[in-house]
């Protein structure tokens, strides 16, 4: 019984971090209506930025957020502004520009290989940070402290993004653009600036996810691929474009990965995750939190 509780809590903690890694994907899709294939690479860049910020300054990785968030926001903003915007402009008449998907795939390859060139294939892990290897022991249960921090970071980030989109003027403008970019333009919203901002916010959340991961995860150039597939499944599960859907989708995956291995081998959990993914696509293609038709 205590084992089940321990596994459930671990599943929720790890799952919320999965949700955080997928948050940027869902934000970018919600606004730009394109799947960003480079999202795993953005997460990888976020991990490297967080890793070097924490290593070089010796700060607690969470203090490094002061550096990581602005850098990643600027990185995403510029990436969208210089690489993706021109394609949007060229394909003005198309509602879901396929070319952008191809461009993001190119960005993925370039970023991964650039990091391979610069940092080499080595696996790096944050040494001597206050969170590394810390465990909380409560009545025979062991819980990872860095994952607990990750859970808190994920919830605060999701809440903050949600609040920003719902309550601020800029957030409303972003939502208006995501609903109907032509109408929004007619209302005087600069649609390309909104895209830049959405991409920047999405990339910044990938940076926060990087900070949450580095106290207990390795950094290497192809690390994004591990979270990529999971990210797509989470986002489809929760509903493309939905913030809380992504968090819930992440927690569902986390629970499957954590609880199921106690009844079968860990290899099976992957099969279960993909089976669930297919089932959702068959039964409720818009996802758990998704809206059936978007306009």
């Amino acid at each position, binding site marked *: 019984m205590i084992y089940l509780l321990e596994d459930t809590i671990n599943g929720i903690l*790890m799952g919320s971090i999965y949700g955080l890694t997928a948050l940027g994907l869902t934000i970018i899709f919600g606004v730009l209506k394109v799947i960003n294939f480079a999202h795993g690479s953005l997460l990888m860049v976020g991990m490297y930025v967080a890793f070097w910020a924490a290593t070089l300054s010796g700060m607690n990785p969470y203090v490094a957020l002061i550096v990581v968030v602005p850098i990643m926001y600027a990185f995403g903003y510029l990436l969208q502004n210089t690489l993706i915007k021109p394609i949007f402009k060229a394909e003005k008449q198309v509602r879901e520009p396929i070319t952008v998907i191809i461009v993001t795939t190119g960005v993925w390859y370039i970023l991964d290989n650039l990091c391979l060139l610069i940092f080499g294939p080595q696996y790096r892990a944050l040494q001597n940070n206050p969170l590394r290897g810390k465990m909380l022991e409560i009545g025979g249960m*062991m819980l990872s402290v860095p994952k607990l921090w990750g859970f808190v970071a994920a919830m605060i980030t999701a809440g903050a993004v949600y609040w920003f989109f719902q309550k601020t003027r800029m957030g409303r403008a972003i939502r208006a653009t995501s609903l109907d970019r032509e109408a929004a333009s007619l209302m005087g919203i600069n649609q390309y600036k909104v895209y830049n901002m959405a991409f920047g916010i999405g990339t910044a959340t990938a940076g926060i996810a990087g900070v949450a991961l580095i106290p207990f*995860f390795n950094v290497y150039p192809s690390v994004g691929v591990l979270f990529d597939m999971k990210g797509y499944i989470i986002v489809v599960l929760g509903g493309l474009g939905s913030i809380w859907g992504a968090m819930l989708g992440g927690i569902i995956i986390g629970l499957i990965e954590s609880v199921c291995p106690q009844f079968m081998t860990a290899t099976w959990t992957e099969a279960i995750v993909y089976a669930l993914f297919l089932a959702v696509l068959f039964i409720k293609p818009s996802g758990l939190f998704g809206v059936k038709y978007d306009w």
Partner: protein
Amino acid sequence: MKGKQVWWRKVAAVAMALGLVAMLGIVSPVGAAETVVKVGNIEPLSSPSASVGEQGKNARNMAVEEINAAGGIKSLGGAKLEMIYADSESKPEKGVAEAERLINTEKVNVLTGCWNSAVTYPTSAVAERYGIPFIVPVSVADKITEQGFKNVFRIAAKDSWWTRDQFTFLQDMEKEFGAKVETVAFVYENGDWGKGFAEQWKKLAETAGYKVVLDEPYPSTATDFSPVVNKIKRANPDVLMMVSNAADAILLTNTLAEYKVKPKAIITSGGGHADPSFLKAVGKNARYLFDIVEWETDVNKPGAKDINTKFKTKYGYNLAGESVDAYIAMYVLKDALERAGSLDPKAIREALAATNLSTGPAMIASYDVIAFDATGQNKFAALAIVQVNDLGTGLERITVWPKNARRAGYTPVFPMPKD
């Protein structure tokens, strides 16, 4: 007119060159009074395996230089070894074609190679057809020596011996330290490699009378190892055996330490646990871990240190399993040639089959005698086990098994301390 003149000049030059070569050809055997033993070597000198191919080439060259400088093969009147290299590009068809060329055109007396098991396998059939002895330093696939061939001689331990030696090591540790091991857990990546190991482990555990309390294949792409580690913790095995790739080896080792999982021993299978960045990424969490290897630089055998130092100054890196086997192969060949006293492939084959080498530089191996069984497998070839420990100069890999190869003055830590 002018074109014609040039043409004639070329013909004349070629003819003269040919004449010169022919004269040299006639003169040299008489003048030098030296026989040479032609050794054909097929290695992956280009392709992604080029770095190991080069290690094999360098190790062979160093051994041959030593042999030639020491007077060559005495029973053949001081015959020198002449090395001829061919590039397999890691391609089976290229290996076969090069073997044909080396045998028919270069008239080699002996063949060695080819590192990639996939190349060695078909190439060994060519050597067998022509009756040319074929020394295989390192291609580990079991099937290479299981074809009923008479001319294949393998130096390295074969695949199935890795798992065998892990269990022999465990039983030796039990005896040496008087600690009883009853339960084992197998945790491995769910690819061909991990599953192959686990299958053999299960058989070996049954024979040895260990109870398998956990048999857990996991996906190498997993991002959270807490569930697997929790399973290990709850199964509470005496010994944990693992096969892992690089990223998962690091995560598993860290997670095991976080959850304070301390079995009596953790035995790993190279791969990720032998990756150069592994120790750096896990730090002290890897302490007391046992890993199986072909050869380690600290092996306690006479001359090993000097030979490694010589190799390192010459080529810039340490000897490793592959290069040691290539180096040994040349001394095995020298020993056989001395006893054969002939360049006839049949005589060399017979001498190789009767090899019983226990002296000389070939003894940098972790075992004490080199002799081949009826299939041509070096029957004493063994692997070594290293323990990761910090003796005050940072974490290092220390050879602990077999006992006669153990680093002088080191006592392995077994069982692992609980604190």
